[in-house]
């Protein structure tokens, strides 16, 4: 009889290669699922264009031929179409990041697989990371395509200003963003049926990011809250790089430094909040209940 030799690794511990494989398996699974819903993907491209079109059309109706001139006086750029399109495309990335993580948790809860994920040797962080990578790739590509199509429909040049700096702001903004999504995840773990809360948060995010207006038009207290929110810096950074609306600290590298700070702080805070709620849920009703 041949004895089956077990690997030297401690039972229940997965190798780094297995963890990476689990992460990408999650990405693949999510992409495969969403590819079955072509209507959803179409909506994802349509959403930023429609969102941007509303204030653009309202502006044209209100200010007529002087729309660009009045907008320049109020915001620092005459390119109101680019301003709104960048705002709505960034908003879709941010909003999707929150929704995808929250929906993933809720879905696993409802289908009864969340508890099983906690029991597998692959740590749940890697499954969550897979969902995060999936969300980033789906939203960023969707937002970029929407921006291109929107620019073509509304007749503006989509490639203007300093594109490299704009790209840097998006890249640096994504990490604190996914750190913050853990707050959303914690909310879903705690409240379970949190759809209305998530809907509300979506509009709060829209407001704080200044999707359709510069945050300088908000009251001072609201501006302060908005500046504590990393996507505000991401949106303003991209707009300043491409349209020249002006960085909060005057220079791109100073604003980027703030995003670097958020890159460290937001994930740490997010993980802390998520673990705290998660522990409390596991000690009480358990993660399987919904």
């Amino acid at each position, binding site marked *: 009889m041949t004895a089956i030799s077990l690997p030297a690794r401690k039972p229940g511990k997965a190798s780094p290669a297995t963890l990476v494989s689990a992460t990408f398996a999650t990405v693949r699974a999510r992409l495969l699922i969403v590819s079955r*819903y072509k*209507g*959803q993907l*179409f*909506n994802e491209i*349509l*959403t930023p264009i*429609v969102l941007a*079109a*509303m*204030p653009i*059309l*309202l*502006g*044209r*109706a*209100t*200010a007529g031929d002087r*729309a660009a001139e*009045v*907008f320049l*006086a*109020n*915001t620092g750029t005459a390119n*109101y179409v680019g301003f709104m399109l960048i705002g709505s495309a960034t908003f879709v990335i941010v909003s999707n990041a929150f929704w995808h993580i929250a929906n993933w948790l809720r879905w696993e809860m409802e289908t009864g697989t969340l508890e099983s994920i906690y029991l597998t040797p692959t740590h749940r962080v890697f499954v969550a990371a897979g969902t995060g990578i999936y969300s980033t790739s789906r939203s960023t590509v969707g937002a970029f395509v929407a921006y291109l199509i929107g620019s073509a429909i509304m007749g503006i040049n989509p490639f203007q200003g300093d594109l490299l700096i704009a790209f840097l702001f998006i890249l640096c903004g994504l990490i604190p963003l996914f750190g913050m999504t853990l707050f959303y995840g914690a909310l879903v773990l705690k*409240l379970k*049926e*949190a*759809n*209305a*809360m998530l*809907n*509300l948060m979506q*509009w*709060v995010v*829209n*407001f704080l990011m200044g*999707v*359709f*207006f*510069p945050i300088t*038009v*908000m009251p001072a207290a609201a501006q302060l809250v908005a500046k504590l929110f990393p996507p505000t810096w991401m949106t303003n950074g991209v707009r300043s790089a491409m349209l020249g609306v002006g960085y909060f600290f005057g220079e791109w590298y100073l604003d980027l430094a703030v995003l670097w700070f958020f890159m460290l702080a937001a994930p740490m805070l997010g993980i802390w909040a998520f673990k705290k709620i998660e522990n409390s849920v596991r000690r009480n009703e358990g993660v399987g209940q919904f």
Partner: protein
Amino acid sequence: MTAITPTHQKPTNAQVFSTFWAMVRKELTVLSRYPVDFIASFVQIFIIVAIFTLAGLTFSETGQASEATSGVVVYGFVMFMFVSDTLWTIGFNVRHEQVQGTLEQLYLSPASKFASLIARVAHLLIWTSLLSLTSALIMRAMLGSLPVNNLGLALGLLAFILSGTFGIGFAFAALTLRVKEAANSLVNMFQFVFMILGACFFPFGALPEWMRWISRLIPTAYGVDIFRSTLMGYPAGFPELAPVNVEIVIVVVFGLVMPVLGYWLFRGAERHAREKGSLGEF
């Protein structure tokens, strides 16, 4: 031994009303079990109002909107809330019952299906009216002024518009029974199309001419146009899609015909689902 013969009597009016009221009460009870949802949806409206108001003001030289702009945006927004609520709540509720597994049981009961459908949206109308009134007041405070004329006529027209959108709601419910999960994406897409072609947040004049022609094919667009033009006292250029009398006739016909057509479509989809045995499938 006496054989029990099933009776196929039509429910009386009192029974229909009783079903309707029981369903409304059930929906209100469910609503009251989620107070966070209740408050969140209320706060959400305030934030949406603030976002669009601030967006509109970036195009204003004085920091205040003109009376015409306020009228267009505020009344357009009110119409958008009513229309989107009535439009997709019926279908969404049918889908919810399907997922919960209670739709089939509901069809086995002798209760009026029509009353049960209407009840799904009736409680929301009360809530939406309250939200609309409050958001109109906030927007009025933020934008400066708001014209209010011909209130009686406007409310009468609103009743016909809502009746028409009830009909579209029935049609969407029929679609939900047919296409199941894909209905969500379709509803979202239609909502976006309505936002633009219905010109809820801007005047129709802002749309390119070819788009205005498409708007002219959508009855709810006339609803938005006539409702806000009436409340604004028909200033020059309003209504924008057709003369006042023509728009009133379109809205009244829409309000009378669409519920019948929508319900007929729903009954067709329902019959098809029952024959195929797919009522409980999701």
